[in-house]
């Protein structure tokens, strides 16, 4: 299994790349600027985590969920209510229960998972495009709920949550590297967990449900139950992303889970590729990069961004990029990568049979 010689050339390249990336991100805080490690890479980790919950449902359950951002925000709101203590400077909304942050973390993850199971149960008898529509209504309803119910959030939301991080992480305001590594570990752990789950009997059944729901039902599998459980797991993952987000930004408000944010998460997942889990982080990285550098970039002279013809801002540009990706490569960047290897394989077949290479492949 772990003998690299049995891997295909593509797997070898991918795993070498993964190793290089892992080494870089582990060492990143030592040589990258704080903006890069504490903002761009850290955001990539937890937005990628949330996007991975969407990609997981899409790739292995054929369920494209637009409720992941809402679940991300619900987890943030719950931990904000439980952990913050109010008091001086605590002008933000929320219950300010002031519980132990570790307990708040556990409860936030558990409650969000339960809400996710509820959402999943309601939507589980639908698939494909209907699932997309139903989960979008969940997202908008959650946003409205958080905005209207001032006792837990209100439109201004909750602030100062990053002062209530569990003791075993420490003060993330003074030591942002700690949060960086927590996010990194969470991202790697979720990636490994998803890779593990899809190999378990549950994961294989889920993929059967994805491909042939009617056959799986007639074989005696409970199709809605598998979809609901998968949704529950995805809710847990999204909740983890939400918790890391509030520890990073310190605040959560309905504006963080509204329709534009929901679409941003979808854009991340689609840019990376909805068919492969790795795509979630690739897409999140590309998106965060664009968000950081295009927003205040120089005007594009011919198209006149920020200027003459279109006059729109970042969303117009990201919308056009999203449109091009969807039209050109439905598999996103990972799809382009995969297709490049397919093409290479096809070209290779045209050549006369070469003698088996004996040296290192690739």
């Amino acid at each position, binding site marked *: 299994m772990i003998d690299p010689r049995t891997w295909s050339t593509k797997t070898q390249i991918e795993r070498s790349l993964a190793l290089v990336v892992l080494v870089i991100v582990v060492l990143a805080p030592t040589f990258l600027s704080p903006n890069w490690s504490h903002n761009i890479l850290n955001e990539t980790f937890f937005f990628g985590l949330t996007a991975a919950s969407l990609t997981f449902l899409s790739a292995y359950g054929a369920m494209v969920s637009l409720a992941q951002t809402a679940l991300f925000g619900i987890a943030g709101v719950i931990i904000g209510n439980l952990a913050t203590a109010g008091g001086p400077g605590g002008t933000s909304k929320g219950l300010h229960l002031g519980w132990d942050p570790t307990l708040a973390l556990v409860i936030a993850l558990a409650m969000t998972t339960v809400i996710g199971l509820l959402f999943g149960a309601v939507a589980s008898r639908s698939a494909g495009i*209907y699932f*997309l529509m139903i989960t979008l209504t969940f997202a908008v*309803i959650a946003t409205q709920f958080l905005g*209207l119910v001032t006792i837990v959030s209100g439109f201004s939301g909750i602030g100062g949550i990053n002062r209530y991080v569990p003791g075993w992480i420490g003060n993330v305001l003074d030591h942002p590297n700690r949060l960086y590594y927590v996010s990194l570990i969470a991202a790697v752990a979720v990636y490994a967990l998803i890779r593990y789950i899809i190999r378990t009997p549950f994961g294989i059944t889920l993929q059967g449900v994805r491909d042939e729901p009617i056959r799986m039902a007639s074989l005696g599998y409970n199709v809605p139950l598998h979809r609901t459980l998968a949704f529950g797991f995805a809710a847990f993952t999204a909740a983890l992303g939400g918790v890391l987000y509030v520890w990073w930004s310190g605040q959560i408000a309905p504006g963080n889970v509204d*329709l534009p944010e929901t679409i941003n998460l979808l854009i991340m997942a689609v840019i990376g590729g909805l068919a492969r889990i790795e795509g979630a982080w690739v897409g999140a990285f590309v998106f965060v990069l664009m968000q950081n550098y295009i927003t205040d970039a120089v005007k594009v002279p011919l198209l006149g961004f920020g200027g003459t013809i279109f006059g729109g801002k*970042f969303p117009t540009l990201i919308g*056009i990029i*999203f449109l091009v990706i969807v039209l050109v490569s439905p598999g996103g960047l990972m799809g382009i990568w995969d297709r490049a290897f397919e093409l290479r394989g096809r070209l290779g077949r045209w050549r006369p049979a070469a003698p088996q290479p004996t040296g290192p492949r690739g």
Partner: protein
Amino acid sequence: VTEALRLPALNRRHAPLLVVGALVVFALLYVLVIASPPPEIGGNWRSTTFGSAVHDPGSFLRIFLDSITFAGALFIVASGFALIFGLMRVVNMAHGSFYLLGGYIAYEVQQAMTGQGFSIPTSEVNTWEWIVPLVVAAPCIAVVGLVTQQAFLRWNQGQELRQALITIAISVIVADQIIAHFPRATSTVAQKFGGNAVSLSWPGWTDRFVNLHVWSVQYSLARFVMLGLGVAVGVGLWLWLYRTKTGMVIRAGVDDQKMTAALGINIQRTFAIAFVLGSALAAMGAVVWASQSNIASGQDGAWLLNSLVVVIVGGMGSIFGAAAGAILFAFVQNFGATYLPTTGADCCTQYSPILTFALIALVLAFRPQGLFGRPG
């Protein structure tokens, strides 16, 4: 005889239905008799803003009329969404953005016609100055819809998810462009652009209250006009779908797209017609609702949600479904906001979005295809 009269034996399978039935009956009873007006301080689970229908029949009638007239506007927007979805299986995620763009275009036209700048008193708007913005905005949005369909969706037929993603991308672009370019006709520079809230004005003759002579209720004529327009669109769609050849082709397309095409019917032309009409209905709904309320950047999401809920609840590809969905949703929303218990500033009318969720959950639990939808 006794056998026939005996009720069917209840078993475990009926339990969910009974629970739901009991909840619905309770909700109706609550609104009709149980609720009571709030006391001076505090309140309990029975306290609502107006009390029950028995306590305050006038308010009850007003909320009832609010709901049914809102359903009229809702139906206009959502029927366009349902038409496109029912025929082509395209979830037009840009429907809300089309709605918003249509509303802003109509606003600019009305401003240009009246030459008032920003705020127009309703009394200074005549019927033409309301109808012309409508007949300008609707074709504009119809063209936007047609271009979207022909340029991006036509060659992705059958790839439902990809089409949904394409329309999401278009909605992002359109929404941002609206912020960049609208509203243009404003009284101060600060209000210009940025998708600020503006409203159209109804024609002057609608700006009065009709005395209903029932429980001394006076009700806005403009809202009755809104309901009338909704009913007119509904009747028009019904006549078109059930009494004309094009409508027959569209219904055939809803039932079996491939078979319809195999019979030599130009299904692509039919698709284009559906997209043109569906988009124009979004613009028409925007003109109607922007005259009653307002339009502002960000409402595209709310109206996309409205359309989605109506179609999910009512069922796909049926104008009766869209009508039923619009009425149910409007009632749940309006009554939820008024008849949830109120015991102070923090409780509980603001929990009304949960009722929308409950409506969707209930309908999907018993009829995954929606009330009037057909399975498969």
